[in-house]
């Protein structure tokens, strides 16, 4: 063999050697791959099978329909309407901006909504659905749904949204719903899984919040098989939830509506209570707000507008507001004195216009004095000196004890938010609260419902109902929940001598029906509707001695926030009490001139069920009333626009 052939042979052997080398290297790699496959598929199979199941099956909660809230006549107050929304999953949208642009060609999207959605899209994970816009009408919704295939990442969804068809009318009573707060979720130990649903709405205030458990219902669920993009392939299992309970309130929407409109333009509140059952027929605070704004998400401008309004539209004044009951408290002082034998009903006290006690001069509202006064006259004419005198004698403990019997300083358990307890003061209480001892002057002030005494309009209405019936009427706001009737608030006989009570009742009748009565001009003339009541004017500032010498500045000349609160409590008909009413007008001025006419009109409306006929008013007032009614009538709700439960009016 020549040298070349030798070299060829050598190269062939070298090639074979290297080929085998590479071959073994390849086999080595294949073995490594096989080992890894065995590890994944045999050793770790269980783990990955579990992960595959998780991938495949999603459990979706089915939010139950929230319970509907009705008024006593079956009128719908809070209902659910389908909420058509458009949502986007960023992951599936190829170009978010392009898709949004195309979407805008189809439907109008509010720029604020769009900004909000854009921010969320950026912030949230790519696979989390973000609501672009909601509360669409059917046409817009259908447009988007039909074009969804051409809009990658966009899909449509129907949820339920809360709607308050009576808008402002019952805002303070039912409150509103809103998305559950993170704070709440953290605070709650074992939160309902429903709360984890994004945008799930829970009651925030009022009845919506207080009966949340009953209204919410229980969640259903469905197990669905989904693919990687979250598209539902099929439903494996479905369990329907239980819708929330229907809540029927004791409120009469019409009376509520009339009361609110009657207080229009004032910072005021009114409570109407059924004397027999304790049913609250109206719990109105003016001005009010539209709770629907909160459901949809209120703009910060609108919210600040509500917050900064000095009339406090967000405050449920009827139950949250506390005021010095002023002269409306005099019945309590009178009964405390009568019951404790401090004074007899025929005993008189001389009123010179003021009383000096422990070096301080306490004035009567009537500077020149009332002269000789018995108990009935002192209520009718609201003589302060009489009550200074008997109040001093009976003492604060007895007065406050009587006040508590009438529900003042007591907590009325109602499904409402932030109910005020008010104050029926005692020396102990003052020591605890202010670290100061009780002074005789405090008792004197308390005897005419000033000083430390505080009561809410609700408490005043309950007081009036108890005065009217002599029973411990308890307020009730919910008639039934899903047919389960709540206990009536009629209550037992009050621990007060009926004879003494009759004296006071007669005096209250006199207030509104005798010439000397402070509310005589606001009387109801129709025999069987006549009311018994009491005026009150709560001073919110201190009148100095200098001012008294130069003359007390009239309310009209004071800035609004320094004017007196006007109060009026009454019940009617006086001889067969059906309803009791309390009206408080913040900084309204005199109880007789401002609060009494409102209470009178509400009373008439509640008793007759219509805008009061002019025949119920004194002749000299009829023209003025007619003008007022003409202005008020068009503002009342058109009830044909509000749905009912379909049941007959009760």
């Amino acid at each position, binding site marked *: 063999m020549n040298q070349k052939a030798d070299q060829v042979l050598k190269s062939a052997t070298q090639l074979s050697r290297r080929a085998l080398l590479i071959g073994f290297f390849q086999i080595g790699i294949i073995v490594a791959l096989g080992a890894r496959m065995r590890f994944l598929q045999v050793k770790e199979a269980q783990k990955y099978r579990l992960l595959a199941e998780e991938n*495949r099956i999603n459990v979706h909660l089915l939010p139950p329909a929230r319970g509907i809230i009705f008024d006593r006549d079956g009128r719908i107050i809070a209902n659910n309407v389908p909420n058509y929304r458009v949502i986007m999953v960023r992951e599936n949208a190829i170009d978010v901006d392009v898709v949004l642009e195309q979407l805008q060609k189809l439907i109008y999207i509010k720029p604020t909504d769009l900004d909000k959605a854009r921010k969320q899209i950026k912030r949230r994970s790519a696979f989390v659905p973000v609501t672009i816009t909601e509360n669409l009408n059917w046409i817009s919704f259908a447009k988007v749904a039909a074009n969804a295939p051409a809009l990658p990442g966009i899909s449509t969804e129907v949820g339920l949204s809360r709607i308050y068809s009576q808008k402002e009318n019952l805002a303070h009573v039912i409150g509103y719903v809103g998305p559950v707060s993170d704070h709440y979720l953290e605070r709650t130990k074992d939160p309902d899984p429903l709360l984890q649903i994004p945008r799930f709405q829970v009651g925030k205030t009022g009845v919506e919040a207080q009966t949340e458990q009953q209204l919410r219902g229980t969640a259903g669920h469905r197990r669905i098989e989904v*693919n990687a993009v979250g598209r539902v392939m099929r439903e494996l299992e479905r369990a329907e939830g239980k819708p929330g309970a229907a809540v029927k309130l004791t409120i009469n929407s019409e009376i509520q509506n009339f009361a609110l409109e009657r207080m229009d333009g004032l910072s005021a509140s009114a409570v109407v209570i059924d004397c027999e059952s304790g049913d609250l027929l109206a719990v109105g605070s003016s001005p009010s707000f539209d709770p629907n704004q909160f459901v949809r998400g209120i703009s910060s401008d609108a919210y600040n507008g509500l917050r900064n309004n000095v009339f406090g539209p967000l405050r449920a004044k009827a139950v949250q507001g506390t005021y010095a009951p002023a002269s409306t408290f005099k019945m309590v002082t009178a009964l405390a004195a009568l019951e404790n034998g401090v004074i007899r009903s025929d005993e008189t006290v001389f009123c010179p216009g003021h009383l000096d006690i422990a070096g301080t001069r306490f004035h009567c509202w009537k500077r020149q004095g009332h002269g000789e006064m018995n108990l009935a006259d002192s209520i009718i004419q609201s003589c302060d000196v009489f009550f200074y005198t008997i109040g001093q004698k009976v003492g604060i403990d007895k007065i406050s004890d009587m006040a508590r019997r009438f529900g003042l300083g007591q907590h009325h358990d109602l499904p409402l938010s932030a109910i005020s307890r008010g104050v029926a003061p005692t020396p102990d209480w003052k020591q605890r609260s202010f670290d100061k001892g009780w002074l005789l002057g405090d008792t004197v002030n308390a005897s005419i419902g000033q000083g430390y005494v505080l009561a809410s309009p609700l408490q005043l209405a309950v007081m009036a109902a108890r005065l009217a019936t002599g029973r411990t009427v308890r307020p009730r706001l919910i008639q039934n929940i899903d047919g389960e009737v709540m206990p009536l608030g009629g209550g037992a006989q009050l621990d007060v001598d009926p004879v003494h009570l009759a004296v006071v009742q007669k005096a209250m009748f006199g207030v509104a029906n005798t010439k000397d009565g402070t509310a005589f001009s606001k009387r109801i003339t129709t025999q069987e509707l006549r009311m018994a009541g009491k005026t009150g004017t709560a001073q919110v500032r201190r009148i100095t001695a200098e001012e008294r010498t130069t003359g007390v500045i009239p309310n009209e000349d004071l800035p609004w926030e320094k004017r007196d609160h006007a109060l009026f409590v009454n019940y009617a008909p006086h001889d067969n009490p059906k309803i009791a009413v309390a009206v408080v007008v913040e900084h309204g001025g005199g109880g007789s001139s401002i609060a009494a006419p409102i209470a009178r009109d509400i009373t008439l409306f509640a008793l007759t069920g219509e805008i009061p006929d002019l025949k119920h008013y004194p002749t000299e007032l009829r023209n003025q009333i007619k003008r007022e009614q003409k202005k008020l009538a068009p503002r009342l709700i058109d009830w044909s626009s509000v749905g009912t439960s379909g049941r007959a009016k009760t």
Partner: protein
Amino acid sequence: MNYLEHNLSATPVGLHKILALNWPIIFLLATISGGGFVMLYSVSGGDLERWAQPQMNRFFMGMTFLFIVAMAPIWFWRNMSFLAYSIAFFLLVVVEFIGIAGMGAQRWVDLGFMRLQPSEIMKIALVLVLAAYYDWLPLARTSKPLWVLFPILLILAPVFLVLRQPDLGTSLLLIMGGGSIMFLAGVHWSYFATVVGSGLGLVLAVFQTRGTAWQLLKDYQYIRIDTFLDPQRDPLGAGYHITQAKIALGSGGWTGRGFMQGTQSRLNFLPEKHTDFIFTTLSEEFGFVGSISLVALYTLVLIFCIASALSMKDRFSALLTLGIGITFFLYFAVNIAMVIGLAPVVGVPLPLVSYGGSAMLTLLLGFGLMQSAHVHRPRPKYK
């Protein structure tokens, strides 16, 4: 060994050539492709028309090519090799300018009846041209620097174009395939040691300087490398595909969930389920038994290639056969390593199984060349 020592007349002619084909390899290729049809039918959810049918058509077209190519004598193909390389290179340049973009890369040229991926053709053309080069090059010059530089240029020129598409997977396959042929041809090992050594050194330098004042890359680039190496860091982003693939693979267990029962792929959790990630569907539905069987089939093809090459007496045939075998190996090894999480995700199809015409045709064409070499190999004169 001299050609004179071979019995050239023993080389089969006419229809005898068909009998002389390496039939075991053909059967193996058909079996693997058949498995591919089954998988494509499964991932399409039982829709034959969608992927399985076109794939079958391509398979038969490819098989026809294989037989035609196998019938032509191997020295014809040797003479054609530089032309083949030039055409493939020209097509790559064409892609650069008028290619069709898809999946974020520009890889295809439209030939009217099919979309062609020139980078796939280049894989075979490169093997051809390198085999021809080393057949032509006198042995003494094999390790001379200048003669080593030339094949390196032959490799890097198409790699440069493919990288621009960008297609990292194919680039790596070209480099590894070409490098392997150079190694087989007898290029001195010190060249390989130098390349591998300096490569490792560079990687080491990059990582060692991290966190120091003179680090070689920017921080965000390091983070990218981290995610590239460990996709689990970002399970819903870059790591999503590989995580889902591992779940599919692992949930198959020993025997799998059964044909068409794979929830991962049927429910679209798997990316590229009919192309690069089809191995996961196979593993999910047929389990470890199914997946290891496929690997065994691939390995058999490889072994038959090496065996055939070892029996070949001329350099071109041997290098070509080994080169085809290596290319085939690189395809399935990189693809499987990628889906089982041993290698970063680069776009490499599972040979003969993944849906795709160019890879199927190219591979069958390559095996046609290998068969030609097998059929026309010189037989010894004396037994």
